[in-house]
């Protein structure tokens, strides 16, 4: 791989890293919505039976972070396999 191709490859990977990072950071700070009136109303719609929306959101965030990591690792492996 020549240096130009290397830099292109790195740029692609960096874009991917930032995409995952921005998604994670966005989801993370959406937790603050719990402390705003409008956000709180939307989040309460996530309720599952007697389990309130904010608690469901907490669990969803933890699970979605792990899923994002899995997706990132799979994509990295897939690209390396090509």
């Amino acid at each position, binding site marked *: *791989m020549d*240096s130009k191709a*290397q*830099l292109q*490859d*790195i740029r692609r*990977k*960096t874009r991917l*890293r930032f995409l*995952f*990072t921005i998604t*994670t*950071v966005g989801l*993370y*700070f959406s*937790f*603050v919505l*719990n*402390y*705003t009136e409008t956000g*709180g109303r939307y989040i309460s719609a996530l309720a599952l*039976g*007697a*389990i*309130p929306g*904010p*608690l469901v959101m*907490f*669990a969803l*965030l*933890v*699970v979605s*972070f*792990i899923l*994002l*990591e*899995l997706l*990132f*690792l799979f994509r*990295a492996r897939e690209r*390396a396999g090509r």
Partner: protein
Amino acid sequence: MRCSSGVPLAGVPIWLLCTSAVQAAGDIEGEVARQPLNPVAIVMFLVFVAATLAISYWAAKRTRSSKDFYTAGGEITGLQNGAAIAGDFMSAASFLGITGLVFLGGFDGLVLAIGAFSAWPILLFLLAKRVRNLGSFTFTDVVSQRLERTRIRLVAVSGTIVVVILYLIAQMVGAGKLIELLFGLPYEIAVISVSVLVMAYVTFGGMLATTWVQIIKALLLIAGVTITAALVLAQTGFSFEALLQQAVDEHPKGAGILSPGLLFKDPVQVTTILVSMLFGTLGLPHILMRLFTVPSMQEAKKSAFYASLFMGYFYLVLVIIGFGTAALLYQQPDFFTGEGRLIGGSNMAAIHLASAVGGDLLTGFMSAVTFATILAVVAGLTVSGAAAISHDLYAEVICKGRPDSHRELQLTRITTVVIGVIAVILGILFQDENVAFIATMPMVVAASVNFPILFLSLYWPGLTTRGAVIGAIVGLLSSIGLIVIGPQVWVSVLGFERPLFPYNYPALFTLPLALLVTWLVSMTDRSTRGILDRQNYNDLLVRSEYGPDGELEVARH
């Protein structure tokens, strides 16, 4: 509002236990209510100590070089390292502190849990691969790759030492109070015991022993919280909804515990806590150092993922335990003082819950796990501090990267002992002080000094040494300055009526300021060194992605 004089528990989010909002959580007080000796806890703890000392003996025979000492020879697998990272990070505060907050304030306690968890995906996406490929032993190695070695190393070492020492003070004071409370041991004996054990692990077994202490502790903690959560759920027929209902019925705040707003009301306050925790964790030197203990960048990425799995599970189980304390403890007057306070403060809620659902055996087990937790965290800090002095400062700055390896290893061991002694002295000196602000600083400093240098050196071609140095100094001074004029120091320590700055954790303001100053100074830097720093970026970029072997790594991965 005043934070208790004794304060914090061991572990990462302990500093948050002292936010004004968390005052109500009733941290461990200066004069703790010492518990009677718990024989089960003592026996279990002695078993743990014997096992970990045996591991240190085994590790000592394998620790012959600096590389062995700092990074366990780079032979830890991704799974083991992930467990060790989790062991380093899932602190007594995570377990006792967050549970105590949920016991008092319900949902709001989970702000700290999400804050403590979210750094791990970012570590995987942004840092794991590049840091692993560029560094040798510490994050300082990474930032000195493209910038002027001596100046940037001195700045990064200062950041590391500040974080480690402050963190250590908070750990030792928290450990002394906690052990006094759990085991009935006098404060000084508790502090000395922690230090002596950690010195034994680290001086002889280096990172290898530290890693296994952290792995064992992580597994014990996971087992402990799983058993406790299962026993809690058994009380309500394994129905989480029924558990929540019972918590609402028993808790003085009723249904309010299921919604935000009991401990935190201001969205800016929540945001600044989240910023401090996320970016502070990404700048913790003892956590970043763990990325060098694995043989490849693939394993480094796996480490971050496995760490997330362990911690994700832990924090989800903590929801059950937290609401379990609300459901089960308020109905049992035995756990409360005559004035209606939980015996030992709310940080004891998890231990009382273990007692309520599992009797003396589970209480003893969880107490022993808590002690093990403190040892694991302090051991990680000690290795990191020793590496900063003997590797970053002695080997790389004083010896210009060509140290005598035997002498370096010797110095590392001496440094470890010195750090252990300093930890005892500081622990005893600060035992009656308000260390809340000291416990706050490491995360804010890590977020405002270490993280910006590390992130920009990896991702911004325009960074220059001058920009990094001035940005780091501004990050450090602004962090300390805003903490001093904030509620913890200005009001609680200095006795003024109102703080000049309203938030305890100023990373929301200091991190952007450090980034802005770094950017501005770098952009206007026309020095020869600045030009060289920019030119170095592409070379660094290729090595950070493909490793030192370049093409070879591409083919391999």
